[in-house]
């Protein structure tokens, strides 16, 4: 019964909080409206995510968010330094192919987004069978090290969260 009424508790919670944030004032009416949206939207969209993965450990999600936010700040400073202080011909860009252990589409999407937001890398595409991700690196002397960092720092954490 609960499963049918609230098919996606995390999405319901997120929608309610985002609604309260959008109206920016906390009143009982807004809360009820937010909860209503948080209940109706997941029910209406349930057919679109048939095999969604269960997010088992909320603390891991928080840890991941903190790691990524910190890396985004570092990424900004690094990329700014490369743009401002490196001469054009010293910038060595590489395409890097990173094999994936993740299999669920949701986890790969989060990984691709993370790669784009963090140090000097933009995720570009997947291989046709979805088991390998193509990353463009703005400047590096050691492409293998970038690949290993992505795998150990982000992919390993996502694997714990989604699988």
């Amino acid at each position: 019964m609960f499963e049918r009424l609230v098919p996606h508790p995390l999405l319901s919670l997120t929608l309610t909080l985002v609604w309260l944030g959008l109206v920016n004032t906390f009143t009982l009416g807004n809360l009820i409206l937010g909860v209503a949206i948080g209940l109706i939207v997941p029910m209406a969209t349930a057919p679109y995510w048939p095999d969604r993965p269960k997010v088992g450990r909320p603390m891991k999600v928080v840890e991941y968010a903190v790691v990524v936010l910190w890396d985004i700040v570092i990424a900004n400073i690094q990329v700014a330094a490369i743009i401002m202080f490196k001469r054009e011909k010293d910038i060595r860009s590489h395409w890097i192919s990173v094999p994936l252990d993740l299999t669920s589409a949701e986890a790969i999407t989060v990984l691709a987004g993370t790669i784009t937001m963090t140090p000097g890398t933009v995720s570009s595409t997947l291989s046709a069978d979805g088991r390998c991700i193509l990353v463009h690196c703005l400047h590096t002397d050691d492409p293998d090290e970038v690949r290993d960092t992505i795998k150990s720092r982000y992919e390993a954490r996502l694997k714990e969260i989604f699988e």
Partner: protein
Amino acid sequence: MNFLIELLISFSLVVSGIFGFVGSFGLLKLRNTMQRLHAPTKATTLGVGGVLIASMAYFFAQTGSLSIHELLITLFLFLTAPISANFIAKAFMTRNLSQDDLPPTGRDYGWAPFDDPPDTPPDARG
């Protein structure tokens, strides 16, 4: 207004100005599309972030109530920036590159823009 809050607001605004400038400057300086993509996806995140922190601090000091809109802008920015970057990268690859310009996938299939997918979707095979 408290001096410390004013200091925080000015500092955030200056930082965001610097990073916004660097992001735009990167568009001018870098050589090709893929390199230019790095400037707006990263250097501007802190640029926008700085303005949002300043805005939150200012309205907190002025009205005494915390504004959540800025946090939501951050959230939406983090959701949309990687996706638009990915679209630009894909459009660039399909127009200007071929499989030979890219590193091998190390698998039986090539990169998605240049090769057909296998019959079953990847997450169905595990």
